[in-house]
């Protein structure tokens, strides 16, 4: 297809070939699974994103075939391109795991940990990250930082205390809407995202900042406190929209549409940007042509509702245990072992329609 040479890169002892110019992170995503470093700020569809959160740091133990020297520091895999013959350690590097644990702790010290009242809970990347790398208790003994409240209008709820300053929303507002009203104010540990004064964001596509937000800093105001995502059934649906592709995911309970989001891939990235009308205004099942259940293959709590799809993983011939120096593959906690949410025996992805309360009713016998 393209004339670009292929570079051989080995990540966590698994070797693949990728076109020159590919970043370590994207090469690792081709392998998939745990080998792909977590990314809180990088977003493949947003130009200039990445490099900031430092969760995707990896160790380059061999620079390239030509220059085999290791890189002196851990590098941000989302912004470092592969070289031919490069060897990278992600989960097989103790240094990486240690640094990542540190980054997660840094991200959490000022985070309010208000997951019980946060609409992002269940699909929050910071939750996933804390689950994998977090400590059981905090070592931070001080008052957490707070901010002056900003009202972003009728559609978008901003909780600045939850923000990790990934800048994704800034890039989205800038690149998608072509309108620069959204930015980062102040600096250092009191930097905050904000709109120009209190002006609400009125662009047709601005709702996408909700989908790119890795945490609960920007959430859908029309869905606020309405339901928990793990009680809802995601359904792919479309409509004939004059503004956007109209391809969305509906989050239903019975016939009721609680929330509309863009469709997200296995890395949590939006497949097609959707417009505000589709997202905020079309909350009737009748507005949509339902295609079928959305497969969720993220390791968050929503995937535990038995929506798991296939993970298109590049499977090594050996077992993971063998290539990862005896490190056992991650076993996810099955939420059903501690909770009877959605009744374990019901596999929702087998229902080709939105789940209804009747589906959960105990058998009447």
């Amino acid at each position: 297809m393209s004339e670009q040479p292929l570079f051989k890169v080995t990540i966590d002892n698994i070797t693949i070939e990728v076109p020159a110019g590919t970043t370590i992170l994207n090469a690792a995503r081709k392998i998939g699974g745990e080998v792909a470093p977590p990314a809180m700020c990088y977003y493949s569809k947003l130009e200039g994103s990445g490099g900031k959160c430092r969760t995707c740091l990896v160790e380059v133990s061999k620079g390239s075939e030509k220059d085999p020297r290791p890189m002196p520091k851990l590098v941000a895999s989302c912004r470092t391109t592969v070289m031919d013959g490069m060897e990278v350690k992600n989960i097989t590097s103790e240094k990486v795991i240690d640094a990542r644990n540190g980054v997660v702790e840094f991200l959490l010290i000022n985070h309010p940990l208000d997951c019980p009242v946060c609409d992002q809970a269940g699909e929050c990347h910071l939750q996933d990250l804390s689950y994998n790398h977090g400590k059981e208790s905090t070592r931070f003994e001080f008052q957490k930082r707070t901010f002056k409240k900003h009202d972003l209008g009728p559609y978008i709820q901003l909780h600045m205390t939850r923000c990790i300053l990934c800048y994704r929303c800034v890039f989205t507002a800038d690149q998608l809407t072509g309108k620069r009203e959204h930015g980062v104010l102040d600096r250092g540990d009191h930097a905050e995202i904000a709109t120009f004064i209190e002006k609400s964001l009125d662009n047709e596509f601005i709702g996408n900042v909700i989908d790119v937000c890795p945490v609960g800093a920007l959430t859908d105001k029309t869905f606020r406190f309405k339901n928990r995502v793990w009680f809802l059934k995601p359904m792919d649906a479309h409509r004939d929209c004059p503004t956007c592709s109209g391809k969305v995911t509906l989050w239903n309970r019975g016939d009721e549409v609680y929330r509309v989001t863009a469709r997200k891939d296995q890395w949590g990235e939006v497949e097609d940007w959707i417009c505000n009308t589709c997202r905020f205004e079309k909350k009737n099942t009748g507005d949509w042509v339902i295609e079928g259940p959305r497969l969720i293959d993220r390791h968050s709590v929503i995937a535990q509702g038995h929506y798991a799809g296939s993970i298109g993983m590049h499977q090594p011939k050996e077992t993971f245990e063998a290539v990862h120096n005896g490190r056992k593959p991650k076993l996810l906690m099955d939420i059903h072992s501690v909770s009877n949410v959605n009744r374990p025996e019901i596999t929702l992805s087998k229902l080709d329609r939105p789940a209804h309360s009747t589906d959960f009713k105990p058998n009447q016998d």
Partner: protein
Amino acid sequence: MVQFSQEQLTEFNRLVSRYPEGKQKSALLPVLHLAQQSFGGWLSPETLDYVAGLLKIKPIEVYEVATFYSMYNLKPVGKYLFEVCQTGPCMINGSDNIVAYIHDKLGIKPGETTADGLFTLKTVECLGACGYAPMMQLGKHYREHLTKEKVDAIIEECRKNAAANN
């Protein structure tokens, strides 16, 4: 209405002319200095809008910058702003005592302004005068090797200037 005078506009044009065509945003920092100096020692939202308009950039671009740099005052300050350095080298030479003395003398804590609007006290981080500590910035210049006597003299000088200009 915020508006540069003819003279200030000439200076604005001189600042912008240093940069290539289409890169006029580069003049933002110097233009904000000029605006702060021209409009009462601080940058009001109205001033920031005005600067955005002059440089043909979005207001948010000006806001992002104005809130990033510590020298831009986003709230009104007194006529005389005492910026006392408190970083390591000044601290070991007694900057704490200078701050305390100004507090005793003027009754203002760091961040506060005297009721007459003459003085604002602010603690700042290293100003690059470590060999001449303790020190503070007052307007364009540094006042170095501060002692209580020197602080007295500076306050006196400011009061005289203020009276003379009224």
